[in-house]
């Protein structure tokens, strides 16, 4: 048995020591561990996040460690997931937060509710959820207590992806990372989407200006008949089904634009402002 434990330990521990260290029920007075610590890899995350594992996998999930903590009738499930990188961890956080509620400043961003808290820091995505206590309990202070201690121990970036800051702020509703198929188009592999009161903006990062140019060329094929947009290195605008009034531009290795506005001209006007905010 000891041999097996050692082998299992060797297989699992490297790279997750950070997560192990932050799983301590005693971070908040009065809370005690209950049950054994859990750990999951993509192979069997299904066992824990039954029916929801795919939602983690698309953000480059590599492993999760978790523990249950108990105080009186309340139990907290604390889970630390290691995602592909910091951008993906932020993407996971943004996809799972309620965009109508404020973002708190823990790590790259946090959402604090009365019985759950989630935040992302570096490549880690942390969830703390009350699981079986009184549904009217307000555990905000406890959740923040755990998160505060954990955040200090987790290594990594504390700022959201820089690209999100390029989106225009007026009438911004929410902004998130899209891990694949931006705007539902496979050729836009991954990037960011910002929702506005009217329409949405997007950014796609390619490896090089040449590869961005190739994507732009495919976009022109897909949206044939578009008019020139007159923005950045190259651009086009049109009115399309589903994406409505849209404008797409390329600036260096970035593709960006606006969709779902009244027409291509309106989209181009907004897209020009977005292009100006993208560094050369």
């Amino acid at each position, binding site marked *: *048995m000891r*041999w*097996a434990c050692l*082998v*299992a330990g060797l*297989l699992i521990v490297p790279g997750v020591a950070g997560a192990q260290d932050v799983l301590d029920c005693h971070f908040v007075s009065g809370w005690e561990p209950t049950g054994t610590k859990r750990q999951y890899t*993509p*192979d*069997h995350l*299904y*066992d824990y996040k*039954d*029916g*929801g594992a*795919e*939602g983690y*996998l*698309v953000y480059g999930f590599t492993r999760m460690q978790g523990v249950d903590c108990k105080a009186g009738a309340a139990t907290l499930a604390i889970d630390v997931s290691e995602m592909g990188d910091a951008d993906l961890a932020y993407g996971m956080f943004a*996809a*799972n*937060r*309620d*965009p*109508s509620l404020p973002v708190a400043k823990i790590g790259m961003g946090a959402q604090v*509710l009365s019985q759950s808290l989630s935040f992302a820091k570096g490549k880690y995505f942390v969830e703390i959820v009350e699981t079986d206590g009184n*549904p009217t309990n307000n555990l905000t202070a406890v959740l923040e207590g755990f998160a505060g201690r954990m955040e200090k121990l987790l290594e990594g970036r504390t700022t959201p992806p820089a690209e999100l800051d390029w989106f225009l702020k007026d009438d911004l*509703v*929410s902004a*998130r990372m*899209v*891990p*694949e*198929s*931006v*705007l*539902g*188009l*496979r050729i836009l592999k991954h990037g960011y*989407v910002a*929702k*506005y*009161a*009217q*329409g*949405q903006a997007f950014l796609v990062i390619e490896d090089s200006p040449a590869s961005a140019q190739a994507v732009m060329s495919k976009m022109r*094929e*897909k*949206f*044939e*008949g*578009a008019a020139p947009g007159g923005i950045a290195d190259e651009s086009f605008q*049109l*009115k*399309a*089904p*589903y*994406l*409505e009034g849209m404008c797409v531009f390329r600036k260096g290795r970035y593709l960006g634009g606006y*969709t*779902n506005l009244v027409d291509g001209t309106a989209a181009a006007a907004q897209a020009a402002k977005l292009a100006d905010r993208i560094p050369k």
Partner: protein
Amino acid sequence: MKPNTSRRAFLSAGLILPVVGATSRLGLANSTMGLLQPSDATDKLQKPAGSAVKLDMRILGNTGLKITTVGMGCMITSDPSVITRAADLGVNYFDTARGYQHGNNERMVGAALGGKRQQIVVSTKSPAGDKASLLKDLDTSLAELKTDYVDIWYLHSKDKPEDIRDDMIEAQHIAKQQGKIRFAGMSTHALPKQLEWTAQKKAFDVVLTVYNFSMDAAMDEAIATVAKTGTGVVAMKVMAGGFRSVKPSDPTYERLHRDGAMLSALKWVLKKPHIATTIPSMTDMDQLDENLRAMSEAYSARDEKILAAHLEQIKPLYCRMCNQCEGTCQKGLHVADTLRILTYADGYGQFALARERFQELPARHAEVRCGDCAECTVQCPFGVRVSDRMARAQELFA
């Protein structure tokens, strides 16, 4: 958590939604049917390339619901426009769940489909473990989906009979009486295990089960048994799950996509008469177009080859249950049983089931370590790397 009433009012007001674009899209789609008409500039986004969409419909058991055999799993859909377009093209079964993206997924589906509510079948699920929590979840789902009812409401991920309590069934009855759901369902990753309970209780109108080409005859039998009771059967994880778990960095990734393996896998499921519909996850328009072809293209010898090749790839891992290895292990281990159990975890993602089955084996299975043998006496005629696989089972379950 906000009270439901305020949430409903908030949603009704049409203020902050994560999918404002989708809402506006939908409004336009409703008011201007011209969007659905061919246009020289936009035709490429309207139909699967080169052909009109041919819809294949089946009846979902005794529910009488007539649904397209290719439905849409919305869990990881990246943009609501994909959902709206699927509905425009005639897909009429859409699946989400309370837990997907902490409610954001239901909200997106509601915004994307709101104007088409009468023409589509919407299913959602709750993982809650008691009546009160279930009914609370349902009210939240209705608010997020912006509808007064869901067509099918599943108890989410029930893999053991004891996962389903009587008060959960009662919650589904109450919801039916209140007109909040039309039909009750259960989703499971372990149908054979739930079979007897499901057949006896007759509590569900619909069962949502994992089903794909990599599964053995036992699953076929289980599905046939359920279907014969009049229970509608919906298949999930029809791409064998493995296609998604194969990462872009994996050498097989590009080939799986290039060869159309995902379409072949979907067609394989659709040739099974007991399956009423499927809910493959779709993240983009290309995937939607590809999957829709499964309704018009027959499963062919080429598909057979593609899937056989994929099975060939997993041959070193995949036990055919020929039992020729029985009695050949010098330590007396039941090799075929252990490999079959390991397949539950590695092949089907059913780790809990696998661990449980492993623990049912004689105690020596948890004590012996294959690595301790200088040489393995078991030779698999199909090339399964027995020693490696047994060691993995011991690592995972012992």
